[in-house]
């Protein structure tokens, strides 16, 4: 079990946190001891590169490659930073919370190893304020590590030193975007930065910085301890490792599970989530959080990995599915998401700041029965205008348009029924 499900091996059935002693007893900090004793940073980097670990925050960018952009040796004297992105705010996503609350030391060990690899001397855990339990556990865990010599000066007697801080976010969705997170951490407005320069070169306080997702970092100790080949072998498809998958919506057993990367959607939905609640039919689902395109029952046999889902026209995102059932109005569903994204726009670039509220307004009109036939044209125009990466300053708005774009594709007749009927068919049906 522990080898197949490395990330959740310390997750207890009652979800009580694993403390330092228990973590160590179960083989914790072995990866750290291995690395600090025997591996130079370049060797660690090579292992991560070879493991084919991809970022678990949603974009799936190869972690090793990201780290390799950090200037090493004396090319850039001064501070370097590692930042853990624990600002989990993607709608329908709660995978990092599980890892944070149940096994904080796994993250800390992963961060120490990541920081060692890029030779960062300061690490931050940027955590959403609502995760106050996790924040508290992390603070305690860091204190324990400082006492035990896993953190601080000359870690485990080596030359390497690292300071780690927990920073609770003031709370905006956009802080999940790594450069907005950096701005927020600096005390500035949480607006994404233009790239280039990438944070690896000029990030927090203008210094080389790596920002990684919680789940990504949690994988590091295991990869360092057991090697790249072991990690590669965990995945069922081309993508390596395991993945925290989740399901929410009208299913019998909503939740979050660590499964091999590439587990078929049907298996996740039917076996782990227990299938649809009685009386509900599956109409579609967002495979990886609120900013991914709908997939439909015809996609159930696809493997949940980055490339497969990408080819199907969506994104695996965070790997946490949101289910649309037949008794929920798809227009209302999309409207709700659009209102969320419009509200969470940082207000920096025009298409996002002014385009998303406009889309939300049109969707609201349709949902309220005030829609006009030309509204579908307006929405289609908005999808083209806002939806393309590069049209906007960051990926928030294109992500926000994904449920709308795919909703218009798969549920167009529902939109049309709202407009032609002048009311929402679901509302009249008395469901939701």
């Amino acid at each position, binding site marked *: 079990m522990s080898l197949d499900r490395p990330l959740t091996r310390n997750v207890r059935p009652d979800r009580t946190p694993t403390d330092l002693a228990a973590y160590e007893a179960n083989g914790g900090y072995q990866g750290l001891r291995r690395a600090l004793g025997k591996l130079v940073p370049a060797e660690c980097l090579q292992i991560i590169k070879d493991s084919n670990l991809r970022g678990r925050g949603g974009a799936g960018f190869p972690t090793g490659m990201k780290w390799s952009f950090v200037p090493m040796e004396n090319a850039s004297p001064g501070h370097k930073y590692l930042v853990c992105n624990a600002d989990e705010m993607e709608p329908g996503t709660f995978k990092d919370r599980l890892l944070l609350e149940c096994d904080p030391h796994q993250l800390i060990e992963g961060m120490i190893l990541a920081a060692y690899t890029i030779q960062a001397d300061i690490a931050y855990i940027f955590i959403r304020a609502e995760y106050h339990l996790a924040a508290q556990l992390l603070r305690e865990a860091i204190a324990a590590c400082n006492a035990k010599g896993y953190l601080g000066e000359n870690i485990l007697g080596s030359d390497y030193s690292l300071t780690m801080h927990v920073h609770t976010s003031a709370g905006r969705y956009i802080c999940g975007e790594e450069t907005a997170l950096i701005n927020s951490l600096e005390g500035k407005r949480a607006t994404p*930065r233009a790239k280039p320069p990438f944070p690896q070169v000029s990030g927090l306080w*203008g210094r080389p910085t790596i920002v990684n997702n919680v789940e990504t970092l949690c994988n590091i100790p295991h990869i360092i301890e057991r090697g790249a080949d072991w990690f590669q072998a965990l995945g069922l498809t081309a993508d390596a490792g395991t993945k925290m998958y989740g399901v929410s919506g009208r299913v019998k057993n909503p939740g979050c599970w660590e499964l091999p990367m590439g587990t078929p959607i049907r298996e996740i939905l039917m076996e782990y989530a227990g299938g649809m609640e009685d009386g509900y039919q599956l109409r579609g689902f967002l495979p990886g959080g609120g900013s991914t395109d709908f997939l439909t029952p015809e996609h159930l046999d696809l493997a949940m990995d980055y490339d497969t889902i990408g080819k199907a026209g969506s994104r695996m995102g965070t790997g946490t599915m949101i289910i649309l059932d037949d008794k929920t109005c798809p227009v209302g569903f999309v409207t709700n998401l659009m209102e969320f994204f419009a509200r969470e726009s940082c*207000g920096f670039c025009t*298409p996002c700041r002014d385009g998303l509220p*406009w889309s939300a307004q049109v969707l609201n009109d349709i949902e309220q029965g005030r829609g006009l036939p*030309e509204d579908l044209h307006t929405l289609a125009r908005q999808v083209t205008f806002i939806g393309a990466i590069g049209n906007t300053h960051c990926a928030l708005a294109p992500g926000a348009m994904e449920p709308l774009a795919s909703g218009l594709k798969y549920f167009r007749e529902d939109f049309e029924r709202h407009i032609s009927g002048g009311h929402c068919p679901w509302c009249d049906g008395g469901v939701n």
Partner: protein
Amino acid sequence: MPVIRIDGQDYEVKEGDNLLQACLGLGLDLPYFCWHPAMGSIGACRQCAVVQYQNAEDQRGRLVMSCMTPVSDGAIFSLAGDKAATFRQAIIESLMTNHPHDCPVCAEGGECHLQDMTVMVGHRDRHYRGLKRTHRNQNLGPLIQHEMNRCIACYRCTRYYRDYAGGTDLAAMAAHNHVYFGRHEDGVLESEFAGNLVEVCPTGVFTDKPLQQEYTRKWDLQSAPSLCTGCAVGCNTLAGERYGKLKRIHNRYNSEVNGYFLCDRGRFGASFVNHKQRLDWAGRRSANGRFDAIDSDQALQHLAAACQRGGLAGIGSPRASVEANFLLRTLVGADNYSPGFSAAEQPLVELALSLQQQTRALIPSIKQIESADAVFILGEDVTNTAPRIALALRQSVRNIAYTMAAQLRLLPWQDAAVRNLAQEQRNPLFIAALADTRLDDVAAATLHLAPADIARLGHAVAARIRTARAHSPATLSPNKVSPNKVPPNEVMDEALQQQADTIASALLDAKRPLLLSGTGCGSAAVMAAAADIAAALGSPAAATVTKGNVNNSDSDSDSDAENSSTTASKVDSDAAGPAVMLCLAVPEANSLGQALLTGPSAPTLEALTVRAVGGEIQTLLVLENDLYRRGPAADIERLLQHVAEIIVIDSLDNPTLSASTLALPAASFAESEGTLVSMEGRAQRHFPVFLPAKERRASWQWLLACLQAISHPRTTDLQHFDDVTNACASDIAALANITKAAPDHLFRNAGLAKVPRQPHRYSGRTAMGANVSVHEPKQAADEDSALAFSMEGVNQFQPGALLPFVWAPGWNSNQSLHKFQTEVGGPLKGGTAGAKLLQQTGAADDHAAPLSPSAFKPVTGQWLLVPRYKIFGSEELSAHSPAIAQLLLPAYLEITAADAERLQVDEGDGVQVMDSASGATLATLEVRINDTMADGCAGYSVGHSAHQGSIFNLVAGTGVALQKADPWQRRTQSAPGADLIATDSPTNSNTAAPGGPNHV
């Protein structure tokens, strides 16, 4: 130079530019909002999208933001492409979802960048059906009107206010489409440069509040190239008039001087022109002591008669034009002419001039100041004495950011990236001042010292530099001065010595070190110390000097080539050795011109007084000068009492005018032509914006008429203004180049026409005066300049000195400026306005440095008076502008908390200032506690209207005793504009609460 292809045509563009600035520089129209030529790109508005193609085969292309896309050789773009055009339209349509369609009542209408861009992209039909979001507006004080509902969130205001100008009290707040640009609460914007928001904002969020009192659209303004008379920096302005009133001041771009920005004294301080105390008629004092209005001919007869009686003396003015001063000096004779400085000021200004003439260091333009990589300010509070320089210094400390950026291959215009990279890293700026200054926040170190100690510190820095240079023979320093300069007698305290080491090594490490001082702390020793450091650092880079032996006479010669654009000057790698800059501030718009006109050892006011008391002076002519601001009232009265005829030419009523026997109404700067010489020795010309009303005449016209009436030989053939300028240039060698300040009246644009002061769309020409007469008046002729009071003519191609307004087809806002520039941020196509006058010998650099003064030793119970300037209040004329008047403080004395305790006074109490020597009471002032005040010093507010007693009795450097004033009436209002929050009612009064209608 890279070649790029735009819509099928190849263009050569400048390496390192972004596509947007390249396009604008090529004359192509491409809409934008968030980009600003002085502030670079951030990619927020997405308005400048174009299509970029991967290669010639690529038919689809992808959208890129031109402001964020560097040009690269072979790149292929389309501006016209459907994809881009549709996207740009969609951007405007999105912006318009919340923009109120209130153009008819919006002060920006007719010169609104948003209007221009909306028309440019062709957006017409509105699809959005939702509600518009609304904001509550703020009362931001008497200068700026706030109307947030119009905001399109381009972020230019906060980028300008915070990032560029260093302000802290304007910020972007909230998020999504509720983002709000304002203060944390209502109140006067704190930055001295807030007024630029009016021009930076692309729409009507921030507008000129005083203009709204009596509003005129841009197209209805008659305007002319003008100059700010607020200080000696010489910022170029565009002054606009309607109905005989000066309506507003806008920035007139000059790549070497003010660039894109003015200070608030300059922008809002000119409406003294409309003051009700302006003189309209000549007045003759009658036997009963009252003034009788007389017509101009009579006045002239009196004037001429008085001038022929002999015993004539004249007092010129550092705020009057070179020409008027020259004519007065010609009329009374050089020996009988005093330049009109105060006794303390005259030697200081003369010293400032001679130090600049005798140094080899570069006398920098504002643009060159921006390029400095290490700065040491000695004694001068530039934010309050020469404000625009403070804004330039804020840019200079950022040069390190561009160096860091270059290492990461970032380009200077990638504004956010450059700022994020450099964060708080700045080039060294050291400030040795009398007390805190507004630049302290960007300074590496600030020292608060008495003037003598500032000078000592300066010499100590120079000595260390010489020592360091002596030990490294490989340096390029041509210093012949022995490095073992005699150190000051007393030992400096250790902390100061360490500071001297730090400052010296920072200056030694710099490629473009700048020494900045001036007359502002009232000390010759301080200026001399600054010059000493410049001498120690050595000559400017060979490249800058060799050409024409440091003769910077040609206005746009080497300096332009060197810094042809803002971006180029930011990353300056000068291989030829350090280019040392020495900048010395002088007080008034033509202070340096006066020093050049008279040369050293001109009669002082005291000298004239002695002669008057001796009965040598029967008639005293005073030109645009309130003598009561030039010295203790008793001294001035002594002079005036001993003169039978006092003839005063001035525009605004003042005590000197009231003491005259004949008063002649002068035209203001806005109604007359004149040359002013700025602190860097740049001669510049202002032109009449409108004709003087009633019997007002330009001072030079009064004086020329008088000279001709008495058949003075020098002036028989003088007729036009230009003749006076030419006469002055030929008589005064130091002013020979003033003729190059601007083209003469014979200039015709494109060989054909005069330059029009009125835009094509100027309206109501036949109706404006219809309430008086229905007959269309003949357009006034302008015999003296190449400008016409007309809509007809060509406002294109002409020299920069003759640019009356900026407008181009499709570009009604000030953003049309790029159509007049050789390249974005570069010089004007017609050349940079002005002509540099200073001939530098470098002689001082080879002589032994002046000895350091003795250390200042505070004596208990005695204070050294030091001057404290304020941007609003210290300058005479701007203080009469109604908007500025609302921000004035009564005269005050700044002392430390410890001194206040010793005197048992509190903030707001009165304090009596007494001469230590004589015990005479000099003034009674309000106490302000400033714990940064140098030990043993008391700072008096310069030029402020006195609460009790005359502030002008105070002279810097006087030893005074202080005593709590009793009785004393405390003011109820504690801070300027404190009543702002309580009111938003409109008012025209200049004393009551400010505020315009607060739109809801």
